[in-house]
């Protein structure tokens, strides 16, 4: 356990030093947003055992809500983020109420279909800018004090938000509530027979995951300054699954590692191989499922246990 503490400390130190090290801050912020998204997703897949194939809906809805409020109504940064998160939470409640009626693969298919519905709404609704999306979303300033125009200031805000979400997820998982979620994941019938109202637990986990995904989406809009249909696209739902699976579902660090790998891969590989990136991502998916289902972090932990 002490070793893990050292790794976290080193990672935290590295994250704090990023602007000094000369790493492109926008890239790092994008990475952190997707890491947050993957962590939120992992709360559902890894710790509650529910595979949602439609998490892009929450990420994208919050991204659109924040982008729209800032560009069309001139809302401040903090209220716009808050509104985006609330929108994602509300959508999570709606989709969750329907989706938790089914389990396993049906749950996956239902969330996928409902996310597709959200996609079509975003495509055709009058305020989303259709195919163009919303451009030029200004970052504004945080509570009128901290101007976020500079990438470094924005970076530290995103980093703080990420750290808060990461800590929050750890707290949730280690709470009695999280223990019940794990019990449901491992043996649903047993959890029912112990007297737990499992649907309420599942719904709350789903809404929490959707809410935190929304925060990631809202921040991403502010970081990059735009929201497009690719945020709500099915491919985005697929990518967050890959990040979680590749890093290790059900581990805390896994989604972060997975997100870092996938975002880096996309950023640098797309220059070299162009559109073949999709093929490579598909290949990684296949390899993950066939060869290392516990993910990178999960396999490492298993290796350490064996020794």
């Amino acid at each position, binding site marked *: 356990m002490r070793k893990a503490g050292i790794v976290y400390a080193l990672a935290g130190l590295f994250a704090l030093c990023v602007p000094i090290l000369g790493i492109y801050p926008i890239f790092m912020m994008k990475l952190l947003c997707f890491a947050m998204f993957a962590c939120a997703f992992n709360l559902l897949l890894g710790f509650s055992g529910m*595979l949602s*194939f439609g998490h892009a809906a929450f990420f994208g809805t919050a991204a659109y809500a924040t982008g729209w409020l800032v560009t069309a109504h001139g809302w401040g940064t903090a209220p716009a983020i808050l509104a985006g998160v609330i929108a994602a939470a509300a959508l999570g409640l709606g989709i969750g109420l*329907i*989706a938790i*009626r*089914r389990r*396993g*693969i*049906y749950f*996956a*298919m*239902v969330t*996928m*279909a*409902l996310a*597709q*519905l959200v996609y*079509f*709404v975003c*495509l*055709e609704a009058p305020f989303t800018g259709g195919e163009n999306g919303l451009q030029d979303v200004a970052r504004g300033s945080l509570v009128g004090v901290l101007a976020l125009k500079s990438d470094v200031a924005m970076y530290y805000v995103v980093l703080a938000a990420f750290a808060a979400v990461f800590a929050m997820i750890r707290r949730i998982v280690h709470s009695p509530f999280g223990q019940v979620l794990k019990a449901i994941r491992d043996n649903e019938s047993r959890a029912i027979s112990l007297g737990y109202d499992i649907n309420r637990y599942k719904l709350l986990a789903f809404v929490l995951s959707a809410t935190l995904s929304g925060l990631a989406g809202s921040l991403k809009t502010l970081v990059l300054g735009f929201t497009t249909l690719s945020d709500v696209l*099915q491919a985005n739902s*697929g990518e967050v*699954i890959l990040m979680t*699976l590749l890093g290790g579902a059900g581990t805390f660090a896994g989604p972060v590692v997975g997100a870092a790998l996938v975002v880096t891969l996309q950023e640098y590989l797309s220059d070299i191989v*162009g*559109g*073949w*990136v*999709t*093929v490579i*991502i*598909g*290949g*990684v*998916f*296949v390899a*993950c*499922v*066939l060869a290392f*289902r516990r993910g990178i972090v999960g396999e490492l932990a298993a290796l350490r246990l064996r020794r």
Partner: protein
Amino acid sequence: MLGLVNGAFYALLSLGLAVIFGLMGVVNFAHGAFYTLGAFAALLGLQWFGVNYWGALVLAPLAVGVLGVVLERLFLRHVYKLEPLYGLLLTFGLSLIAEGCLRELFGSSGRSYPVPDALQGAINMGFMILPIYRAWVILASLVICGGTWFVIERTRLGSTLRAATENAQLLQAFGVNVPLLSAATYGGGVALAALAGVLAAPVIVVSPLMGNSLVTVVFAVVVIGGMGSILGSVVSGLTLGVVEGFTKVIYPEASNIVVFVIMALVLILRPAGLFGKE
């Protein structure tokens, strides 16, 4: 009428999904990709080898079916013992690979496939004009669905297949080659998808992305109909196609989402699906 044509494709695709799921417990996300591959096989067969429509109707499903068997042997057979979610993720990866390859090799712009001469023209039915090709698609898919149902419910091969769903281990003890059976089932299921692709090629734009948008709708159809029920998937496929067609006339903006809205309603009112038993 256009709705019924779409419904025919939904029915064919959800039929293949239902067969594969019923016998192998795998939700085949790559179903849309195989549908696309079928259409592309027909198109390339025509351009490169001069294979006409009727030839493609036989050869494309055959080729895609063989590909399906190979993929089953290489990848899918490893996930049967795992949770069904892994099958979904694996086939999702496979569909990304197929889609990416097609897009890089042939570009994402659409191409068109000519309607065969024998099926050109239209019949004037008085109240509406029915293009012969569309009538053919509906007829052909009904015959195929009926045929598949017959094979599974009424023949010896079908009873073996159903036995394998019940208890594969026991069946193997009786001397039936179960791995061969599941490879053949997967090949047959995706061949159905490819057949739908060939049938669709002349009425839609053939592009690498054509299967992607369809597969989600078909999933919704399957959820509505209840998976594993062959009759259910065919009936709900056709019905939803018609409903979608009507919506296109009455309120076009909603035509893309009507199937999903119906799915949500069905889940609220009857969570097991219309024909499902859970």
